[in-house]
């Protein structure tokens, strides 16, 4: 029984920490309708800052807490709101996700640059002073955490329910313009809610550090737990969010206490929020379509078939020349660039046309690689099997969020990536615990030069396929669905299945790339497909241009170059995350990316931007998408 009590207390403490984080998330979301994926990352950076000031510099705990939670975090939140969020006020969900993921990656980059990874510990508050409670030991830190959660909950609830400022905050999201008419300073309100949100993230990060550890990634993933809790309240209700947080904390604690947590199940603790989230999504009521929301996004021109074939031949020709003229290591690098390019092509229909965001595209690549490895054949059919397996998994991911909307879909990919990372990839049918797999080369192409030509051909083939999709009716459906889901539904389009199909297609392409990736590396491990590497991939895809084949190739090559840069110019390479983060915060709103600037160079026309530049005269509509 003592064990049970101890687990319950641990669960409540963890849940209280989640509740603090989730409260901040719900506050910022309900007042700005921007889901801050970087919420956990803010907590992470603040936890590091707390460590720096209190442990490294030796400041008193109370002063450090006051400084970090009371001053630095709110200022950071307000600055983030001022710089980034304003421009996102009316942006589509996809753009808000990309920009906040950019912030997340940037914050990780900052943390890694300032605090290079070494072992750091943060002592709990009042370390050593424990209380006995019916056979279980409760530390003062635990009590403080629970008390902090209760105070934060009560304060937030009181703020939003009883104060003028809080009521105005909630009203701000419904109608900024109207509220401004009544004299409210909506920008002030929004900055305040982001400030408070960041302070809560910081508090949660600091409180949970003794449980989670001072780690860039684990603390950043706090957003996952906070999100899972917030889904219980449909991202809007604070009381339900707190209930969700406590349930999550408890289930995590019991799972860790009563289930075996060695070997393949060692990631269970980290995976519980993801499982909890899927359960919450399945129970969530059906979302109603939002009406009255349209915004055209001018795409880049779609090349005709001949033009596309011409460019394809050019790319393959260039790859062939490189294959024979350049050393083998360069061939391998270029192959990798083409393979990443295919992964980015998988985002073109999904994100570029459809406006959906996948935060775990590399996980599908991993599924493809495992499939080819397990089949153990060099037949090109293995690539199709890889695509099929990944497509199936992609459809499964889209299913729980089927009744819900884009934001939930994107965030379930995050949960899915986490689940695969921590549990499935560790299982014996996948890589095994910390294991790796040998992958055969397709067609037995052992020469690096031959493999380069193969990947170039594969890229061109998939690229032509994506362009054909865009020109087909399904391409139009995707764009129509992005522009107006309600409009599509009233025309008779089954949004759910269209969404599942596009997710499956995208995952399938990524799985296909995974087969090629495995063959290139020849041995692959779970670390090759880590969730956290999917994020820079998504960001680079958008920065380079996620609406075009050219953008995909550009993005693929850039992604390939990053580690090269890191190994050859370490000083710059270490900042890669930072650079990608900054670039996507700046460019994340324009899915046409750098590629559209290239096209514009060729045609001496200003690039289209996002939201679209209105073409002055209607007759210039030729360039439409």
């Amino acid at each position, binding site marked *: 029984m003592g064990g049970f009590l101890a687990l319950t207390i641990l669960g409540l403490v963890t849940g209280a920490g989640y509740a603090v984080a989730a409260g901040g998330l719900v506050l910022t979301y309900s007042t700005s309708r921007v889901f801050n994926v970087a919420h956990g990352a803010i907590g992470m950076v603040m936890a590091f800052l707390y460590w720096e000031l209190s442990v490294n510099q030796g400041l008193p705990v109370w002063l450090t807490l006051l400084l970090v939670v009371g001053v630095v975090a709110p200022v950071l939140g307000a600055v983030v709101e001022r710089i980034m969020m304003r421009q996102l006020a009316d942006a589509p969900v996809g753009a808000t996700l990309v920009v906040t993921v950019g912030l997340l990656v940037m914050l990780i980059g900052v943390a890694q640059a300032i605090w290079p990874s070494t072992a750091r510990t943060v002592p709990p508050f009042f370390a050593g002073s424990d209380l006995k409670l019916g056979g279980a030991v409760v530390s003062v830190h635990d009590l403080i955490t629970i008390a902090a959660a209760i105070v934060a909950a009560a304060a937030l609830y009181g703020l939003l329910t009883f104060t003028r400022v809080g009521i105005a905050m909630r009203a701000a999201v419904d109608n900024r313009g109207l509220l401004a008419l009544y004299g409210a300073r909506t920008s002030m309100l929004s900055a305040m809610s982001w400030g408070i949100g960041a302070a809560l993230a910081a508090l949660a990060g600091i409180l949970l550090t003794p449980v989670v550890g001072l780690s860039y990634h684990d603390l950043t993933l706090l957003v996952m737990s906070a999100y899972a809790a917030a889904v219980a309240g449909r991202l809007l209700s604070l009381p339900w969010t707190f209930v969700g947080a406590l349930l999550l904390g408890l289930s995590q604690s019991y799972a860790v206490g009563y289930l075996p947590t060695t070997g393949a199940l060692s990631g269970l603790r980290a995976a519980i929020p993801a499982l909890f989230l899927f359960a919450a999504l399945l129970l969530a009521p059906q979302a109603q379509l939002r009406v*009255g929301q*349209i915004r*055209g996004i001018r795409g880049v021109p779609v090349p005709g078939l001949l033009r596309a074939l011409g460019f394809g031949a050019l790319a393959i020709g260039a790859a062939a020349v490189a294959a024979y003229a350049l050393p083998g290591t360069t061939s391998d690098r270029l192959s990798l660039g083409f393979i990443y390019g295919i992964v980015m092509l998988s985002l073109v229909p999904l994100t570029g046309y459809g406006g959906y965001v996948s935060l775990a595209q590399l996980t599908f690549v991993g599924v493809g690689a495992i499939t080819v490895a397990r089949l153990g054949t060099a037949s090109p059919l293995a690539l199709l099997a890889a695509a099929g397996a990944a497509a199936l998994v992609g459809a499964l991911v889209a299913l729980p969020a089927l009744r819900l909307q884009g934001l939930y879909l994107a965030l379930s990919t995050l949960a899915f990536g986490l689940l695969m990372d921590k549990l499935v990839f560790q299982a014996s049918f996948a890589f095994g615990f910390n294991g790796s797999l040998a992958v055969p080369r397709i067609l037995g192409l052992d020469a690096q030069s031959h493999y380069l030509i193969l990947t170039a051909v594969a890229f061109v083939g998939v690229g032509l396929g994506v362009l054909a999709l865009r020109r087909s009716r399904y391409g139009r459906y995707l*764009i129509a669905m992005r522009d*107006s889901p309600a409009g599509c539904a009233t*025309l008779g389009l089954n949004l759910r299945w269209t969404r599942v199909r596009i997710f499956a297609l995208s995952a399938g392409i990524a799985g296909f790339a995974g087969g090629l990736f495995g063959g290139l590396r020849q041995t692959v491990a779970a670390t090759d497909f880590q969730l956290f590497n999917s994020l820079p991939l998504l960001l680079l895809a958008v920065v380079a241009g996620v609406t075009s084949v050219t953008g995909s190739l550009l993005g693929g090559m850039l992604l390939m170059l990053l580690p090269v840069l890191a190994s050859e110019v370490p000083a710059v390479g270490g900042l890669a995350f930072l650079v990608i983060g900054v670039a996507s915060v700046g460019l994340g709103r324009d899915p046409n990316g750098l590629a559209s600037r290239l096209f514009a160079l060729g045609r001496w026309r200003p690039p289209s931007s996002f939201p679209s530049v209105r073409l002055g005269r209607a007759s210039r*509509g030729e360039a439409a*998408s």
Partner: protein
Amino acid sequence: MTRAYVDDKRPLLEVGDVTVRFGGVTAVREATLEVHEGEVTGLIGPNGAGKTTLFNVICGLQRPTAGTVWFADGDITGKATHERARLGIARTFQRLEAFGSLSVWENVLVAAEIRGHKRPADVARHLIEVVGLEAYAQAPADTVPTGIARLLELARALALHPRLLLLDEPSSGLSAAETESFGELLRDIVAEGRAVLIVEHDMDLIMRVCDRIHVLDFGRVIATGTPAEIRADENVQRAYLGRSEEPGSDFDEPPAADLGEPLPDDFGGAWINPAHGEETRRDEA
């Protein structure tokens, strides 16, 4: 102009005792109305009366708190929006839902493709001509003026070859001449045996084209009848007068007295604010 209403066949659409509550706001209260094939049915009422909400209930975008919707002899209350579209319900939106990044032509084409026509391009081309959008066919839908976008939504809805067409304030943004031909188009559509349910602020148009009118006030259907009956209806007049701010407004004379005449433009000064609910994005400089 108005024809006698014969109650001999089952209505195509029957909304029965529908109530919609948004938190504390009751947008629609036990509304009951019918729409018959071959007729233009009007739905009028002040701003915020619940007309758009009722449309959303009929096409499945809004689940009613209570009540049923019957269409073509089947209960469709629980059906999804796309299923209703396939049964033959099409609509346009008061706040436009055109596909902004597709061209006008592609907007109509996509509808014809979703409907599964054998030759979607032919259907789309024909409809673009029917509503007179040839000049704008290649323009991105978010660059055209509001009136044009409304016609585009009409063409898109017609591409479904619907049995029931729901039009939410379709004439705002149209010129007088365009409104005139729009009215004729509506009569042509119902002449093919379809049904039209139209929400409109242009009383002139409503009185001219409708066979029957339902009047909604505070979410309640306060009157149902032919245009002549509606003009004479006391409840309707009271609803108008109750809101009318100008003492010398036209309601001082009973509307029934000038049945044949088109009503003045400011009929029900407080009733309609044409700009209300418009998307602000179309800031045509």
